[in-house]
């Protein structure tokens, strides 16, 4: 242990790298492409930059979790459908998404948006006020609507290609895993339960809603929370497509200050906190809501 520590100290001195978290108070000097909640400018501190990164991570993670749950549950239930087409579409979806690395999928979506979509002047407009172009997806907010000015849109709100690619990639990828969890949960419910429900005259939708799903949920929640955690961790791949999440910004910070140890420690501490909180929640859930 001492061997490593002494080497580290020597190396840091040699490269004139500072130690400690003092750098957090210094001016960052770089711009951040987008920020979900906070305002930020190059004159703000590193600390603020990192916080912006964190909020960006949380933004994409939370929206991703909600969307992935919806999509995943739909696909999972579709896998159990009696309709041949629905069943096999869903199965093909799951099989494909689970066997291709997430990074490949992120690059793919990014390429689709930046290469496949038309420029702002020929933007697609599926709904009034919503424009899809290779500069991003523009949609109206309560206060303003996007308008074409010159080569780009102004006004309204925008999903940057980076955010959109990350969100779509994370959602579609995680949904495949959630689909399998939902399917396994429903299958785990004893056949006799559906038989008894049918014998009592309950219809198929009633049986699913009143008898099967409540029991399936207990089996589904633990692995589902695991997937939520995976989605959050996977959002760190943002660094590969240029979305300024926590890892991205920490990376830039590390490059500028040279303080790699502090930077990585920060990243790990944040993610560890998130993971342990979710684990704690799951333990609580198992203890209090477990199958009676």
């Amino acid at each position, binding site marked *: 242990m001492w061997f*490593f520590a002494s*080497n*580290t100290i*020597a*190396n*840091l001195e*040699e490269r004139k790298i500072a130690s400690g978290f003092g750098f957090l108070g210094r001016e960052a000097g770089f711009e951040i492409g987008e920020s979900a909640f906070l305002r930020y400018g190059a004159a703000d501190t590193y600390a603020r930059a990192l916080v912006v990164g964190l909020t960006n991570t949380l933004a994409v993670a939370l929206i991703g979790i909600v969307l992935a749950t919806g999509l995943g549950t739909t696909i999972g239930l579709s896998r159990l*459908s*009696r*309709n*041949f*087409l*629905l069943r096999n*579409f869903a199965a093909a979806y799951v*099989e*494909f998404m*689970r*066997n*291709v*690395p*997430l*990074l*490949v*999928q992120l*690059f*793919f979506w*990014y*390429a*689709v948006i*930046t*290469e*496949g979509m038309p420029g702002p002047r020929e933007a697609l407009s599926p709904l009034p006020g919503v424009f899809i172009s290779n500069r991003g997806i523009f949609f109206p907010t309560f206060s303003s609507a996007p308008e074409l000015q010159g080569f780009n849109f102004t006004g309204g709100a925008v999903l940057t290609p980076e955010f959109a690619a990350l969100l779509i990639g994370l959602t579609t990828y995680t949904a495949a895993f959630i689909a399998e969890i939902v399917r396994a949960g429903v299958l785990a419910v004893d056949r006799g339960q559906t038989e008894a429900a049918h014998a009592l005259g309950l219809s*198929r939708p009633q049986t699913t809603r009143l008898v099967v799903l409540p029991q399936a949920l207990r089996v589904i929640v633990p692995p589902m929370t695991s997937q939520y955690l995976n989605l959050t*961790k*996977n959002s*760190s*791949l943002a*660094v*590969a497509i240029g979305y300024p999440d926590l*890892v991205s910004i920490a*990376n830039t910070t*590390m490059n500028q200050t040279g303080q*790699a*140890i502090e930077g*990585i420690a920060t*990243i*790990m501490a944040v*993610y*560890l906190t*998130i*993971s*342990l909180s979710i*684990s704690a929640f799951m333990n609580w859930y198992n203890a209090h809501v477990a199958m009676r």
Partner: protein
Amino acid sequence: MRWLRDNFFGGWASGVFTVVLILLLWKTLPPFIDWAFLDAIWKPDPKACRAAEGACWGFIAEKHRFILFGTYPYELHWRPAIATVLLIGLWVFSAFRRFWRWWLASVWLLGLTAIGVLMWGGVFGMRYVENERWGGMILTLLLTTFGLAFAFPLSILLALGRRSDMPVIRALCIGYIELIRGVPLISLLFMASVMLPLFLPSGVSIDKLLRAQIAMILFAAAYLAEVVRGGLQAIPRGQYDAAHALALPYWRRTCLIILPQALRISVPPLVNTFIAFFKDTSLVLIIGLFDLLSTIKVSIQDRAWTGFGVEAYLFASLVYFAFCTAMSRYSRSFEHR
């Protein structure tokens, strides 16, 4: 007839789905087939590609050697080619249950040495090729193989340690597993690539590939440990009781009775973890190593071939999909025994 009716028009909702899905297929499949096959350009001609409506697969024809072998010297490509075949062969060979004997380990040792000799060279008159020049498919396969080869025994130790009666060992194992599983792989790769050099005396350096490999091993070990732990927990209590009753010492008990059973039960989730690990090797792109995904990405950064990202990543998807699907089918065949 009845099958058709039940499966396509079982209820009014089912009928609606059938109609909608067929409509969707009708509208998207023909245009896609046009784009991907009929109008596509297969020749390595960038001008034709840009002029055409269809997909451009020409870059594969032009760049396939780079994609498969990275920056390995062009005239020596036969060496990584044989190494790749050998490596895939080793995996396929190990997939057959009847080869699961002690001599399998020696087969692997021989195989890996042969691969090492082929890749590095320097003996038998073959030119030495430093591992900075390795890339593409062989790099992905090597990272996966060595990653799993070292992580697996480590994971068994971790799993056993987690169930240990000694509080220090138990705490260390739990701490390690929870730490690694709680952070993203990318942070571990950063740690290896940036922090590891700081820990060593100046002048000593570990090359990049090794750093990445170490990070991947540490990562895999934690996840595999949880799978093995599941297997250990799934063995009926009676087995432990019987082993204790026979008065066998700890390691003998564990190696002869407990582990064989635990591992046998764990094969499906283990293979699933292997598949996930194979996919995770793609992340080394971020720290500058030239794995398969990286070579594909770089191949379209060539001025002549920019702008064909969609084709490039579809191609990448297909390659990974082929490998991963094969492995997952294999894993599923175990569940039917």
